[in-house]
C-alpha cells in the first residue's frame, strides 16, 4: 500500500471549497425576495408550473410599473423557486434552503403534506407563508403567519349545495383521495358536509400518490354502486387515469373534483367523452370575463401556452402585493397584520382573508369561487359561489 495517504483529504478539500464558495445573502437592499417551493416536475407539475409562473408574471408586471413603494423606497420583487416534485422530503429540504441559505422571509408552498411538515421551521423563523395546500390544522391560531391563498374543502363544499339543488337524482357519493394529509382532511371535511346535506357516503377510499393502476380501488368503489365519484385533491394526471379506468370498468355516473383540477389534462388522458359532465373547482376555460381574458393574453405572451390553472394560483401574488402596499413595511409580521384587513382584487373579483369563526383565525382567502362543468372537453363556468363562512 502506498504510504502517506491521508484519509481526510476529501473532507479538507470539500470543506475548503464550501467556505470559499459560500456566498452571503447580501443582495441589493431594495429587493424583496420571495421564495416558492412547488412541484415543477412529476405528476403534480400541472399545479406547480402555473403556480410559479403566475406569481412571477404578477411580480414582473409590478416591477415594470416601478416596483413596490414602501415608506418612500422602491422595491423590486424577485422570486427564488425550487422544485419539490411533490416529494415531501424534498419539500422540507427546499424550504429549509429558502429560509437558511437564500434568506427569504416570504414564501408560497404548494402541497398539504409539505406545508404541514415545514410548519415548525416556518413558525420558528417567522416567515410569512402564502401556501396552496390542503391540510388539517394548517389555518389555525398556531400558524399566525400562514395565510392560505386558495379555497379549501370547508369553503368548496359550498358546491355540494348547488349539486344537491340542481341534480337531486344523485344520492350516493363515493369519495377517493390520496393517502396523506391532503387527502385525509379533504375526505373528512367533505364526507361530513355531504352527510349533513343528506347524501349517502357509499365508499371512502385512499390511494398512494404513486399508483397508476386504480383498478383495485375502483373495483371496490364500484361494488358499492355510487351515483357520483368525488376525487379529492388529486393531481390532474391521476384524475385522468381514475376516470379512464372507471369508465372502462363500466361506471356511468358523474365525477366531481372539489379542489383545483386542470380538466384539459384530464380530458387528454381519459378522452373527451368520458369526462363529459365532470364538475370541477378552480378551473375555467370558457367563458372568461374581460379581466381574465386580458390575463390570458399576458400569460400566453410570456409563457408561450395558456394555462387556466394560473387564474386562481395567482392569488398569493395579488395578496402579497396588496398587503405590502397597505402595511408599508417589509416585515413579515406587519404584512401579516395587513393581510388580515386588506381587501384586494384577484382575477375573480374582490378577495380578503377571513374564516375566523371556522378556523379560529382569519387566515383563509375568501372570494367568489368558480365552479365549472366540462362540456365537450371544455370546462364551462357554471356558477361563482361565496364560501359558507366569511
Amino acid at each position: 500500500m502506498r504510504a502517506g495517504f491521508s484519509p481526510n483529504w476529501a473532507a479538507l478539500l470539500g470543506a475548503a471549497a464550501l467556505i470559499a464558495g459560500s456566498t452571503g445573502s447580501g443582495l441589493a437592499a431594495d429587493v424583496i425576495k420571495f421564495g416558492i417551493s412547488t412541484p415543477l416536475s412529476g405528476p403534480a407539475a400541472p399545479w406547480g408550473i402555473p403556480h410559479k409562473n403566475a406569481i412571477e408574471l404578477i411580480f414582473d408586471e409590478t416591477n415594470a410599473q416601478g416596483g413596490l413603494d414602501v415608506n418612500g423606497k422602491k422595491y423590486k420583487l424577485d422570486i427564488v423557486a425550487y422544485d419539490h416534485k411533490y416529494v415531501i422530503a424534498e419539500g422540507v429540504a427546499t424550504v429549509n434552503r429558502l429560509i437558511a441559505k437564500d434568506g427569504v422571509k416570504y414564501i408560497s408552498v404548494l402541497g398539504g403534506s409539505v406545508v404541514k411538515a415545514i410548519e415548525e421551521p416556518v413558525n420558528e423563523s417567522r416567515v410569512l407563508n402564502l401556501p396552496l395546500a390542503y391540510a388539517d390544522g394548517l389555518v389555525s391560531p398556531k400558524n399566525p403567519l400562514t395565510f392560505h391563498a386558495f379555497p379549501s374543502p370547508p369553503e368548496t363544499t359550498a358546491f355540494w349545495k348547488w349539486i344537491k339543488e340542481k341534480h337531486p337524482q344523485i344520492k350516493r357519493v363515493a369519495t377517493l383521495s390520496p393517502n396523506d394529509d391532503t387527502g385525509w382532511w379533504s375526505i373528512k371535511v367533505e364526507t361530513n358536509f355531504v352527510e349533513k346535506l343528506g347524501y349517502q357516503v357509499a365508499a371512502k377510499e385512499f390511494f398512494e400518490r404513486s399508483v397508476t393502476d386504480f383498478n383495485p380501488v375502483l373495483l371496490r368503489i364500484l361494488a358499492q354502486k355510487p351515483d357520483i365519484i368525488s376525487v379529492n385533491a388529486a393531481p390532474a394526471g391521476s384524475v385522468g387515469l381514475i376516470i379512464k379506468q372507471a369508465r372502462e370498468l363500466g361506471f356511468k355516473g358523474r365525477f366531481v373534483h372539489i379542489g383545483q383540477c386542470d380538466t384539459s389534462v384530464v380530458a387528454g388522458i381519459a378522452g373527451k367523452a368520458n369526462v363529459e359532465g365532470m364538475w370541477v373547482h378552480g378551473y375555467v376555460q370558457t367563458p372568461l370575463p374581460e379581466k381574465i381574458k386580458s390575463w390570458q393574453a399576458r400569460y400566453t405572451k410570456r409563457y408561450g401556452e395558456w394555462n387556466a390553472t394560473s387564474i386562481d394560483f395567482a392569488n398569493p401574488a395579488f395578496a402579497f402585493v396588496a398587503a405590502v402596499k397597505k402595511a408599508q413595511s417589509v416585515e413579515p409580521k406587519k404584512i401579516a397584520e395587513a393581510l388580515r384587513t386588506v381587501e384586494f382584487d384577484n382575477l375573480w373579483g374582490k378577495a380578503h382573508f377571513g374564516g375566523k369563526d371556522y378556523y379560529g383565525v382569519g387566515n383563509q382567502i375568501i372570494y367568489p369561487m368558480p365552479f365549472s362543468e366540462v362540456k365537450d372537453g371544455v370546462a364551462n363556468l357554471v356558477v361563482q359561489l361565496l364560501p359558507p363562512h366569511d
Partner: protein
Amino acid sequence: MPLSARSAAAVIPALALLLALPLVGGDYYVHILALVFTNVILAASLRPSLTCGQLNIGHSAFMSVGAYTSGLLARNLGVPFEVSLLAGALLATAVGLVIGYPSLRLRGVYFAMVTVAFVEVIRLIAQLWVPLTRGMSGLSGIPKPSILGTTLVTKTSQYYLALVLMLIVLLVLYKLESSRLGFIWKSIGMSDNLAQSLGINIAKHKLIAFALGCFFAGVAGAYYAHFIRFLFPPEFGFLMATNILVYNFVGGRGHFAGPIVGAVFLSLLSEPFRGSPYETIFFSLAMLLTILFLPGGLITLPGKLAELRQWSTTSAARPSTAA
C-alpha cells in the same frame, strides 16, 4: 494497521477544520456537513459486512428503524435523546438479527435480493402503519436532540453532536478492523470456505459484522430523525440503500478510509446541484466512471496519479520508439 504518523498529520488539520467550520460557514453549510457526517457513519458501518463478502443493499432499512424508533419515543413519550438514540440503535440491531441470522447461509446475489426485499418491507410497513408513523404524510414534530437534559437548540450544537458521533463510530470501527476480528472478516471475504476450514466460525463473524452495521445505521437514523425532525418512508428506500453501497464502491473497498472518502465526495458533489435533475445525473456519472476506470475506488487515485507521474518521467528519460 496502526495509524501511521503521516495519516495522523493529515487527520489533525482536517479535524481542526471541521471543528472550526461553524465559525466561518453559515447555518446552511453546517446543516449540509452534519448530513455528510451521517452519510459517513452509514457508509463506514456497511463496510464490515462488505468486507465479509455480504452484498448488503438494505442498510437504509436499519437507518429507518433507528430513526422512527427514536423519533417516536421522543415525540410521543418524551423519552430523552440519549435513551431514544440507544433504543433506536438496539431495535435496529434486533431487527437486523431477525433478518440477518437466517440469511447467513445465502451467498452473493441471493443475499443481496433478501436485503432489497427487506428494504421494501420496512418502507412499506412505515408507509402503511399510519396510526403510528402517519404514513406518507410523514412524521413531524420530532424534538431536537438533547444531552443530559439540555436541548441542543442551534444547528451548530447539533453539528458538533454529529461530529462527535461520527468520530466515535469511526474510532470503534477502526479499532475493530485493525484487530483480529477485522482480520477474520477479511479472510472470510476473500475465501470463506478456506477460512472455515481453518476453524473460523464464519456464521458468527458474519453476524457480528452485520449486527454492528445495523447498530450504527440505527445511530445514524436516530440522529437524522432529531436533526431533520421529519421522517418520510420512501426516503429510506432502495435509493438510499444503493447510495450507501455506492459510497463504499466509489470510495474504495480496500481501505478503511474508502467509505469516508466516498461518502464525503459524493455527498458534497451533489450539493451544488441539489434540487435539479443534474444532481442525480452527476452522481450516477461519477459512480459509473469510477467503477469503470478506478475499480479500486477514489482512494486509489493518489496512487494511480503517482504511478502516472512515475511512468511519464521514466518514459521521458527513454526516447520512445513507438509510432
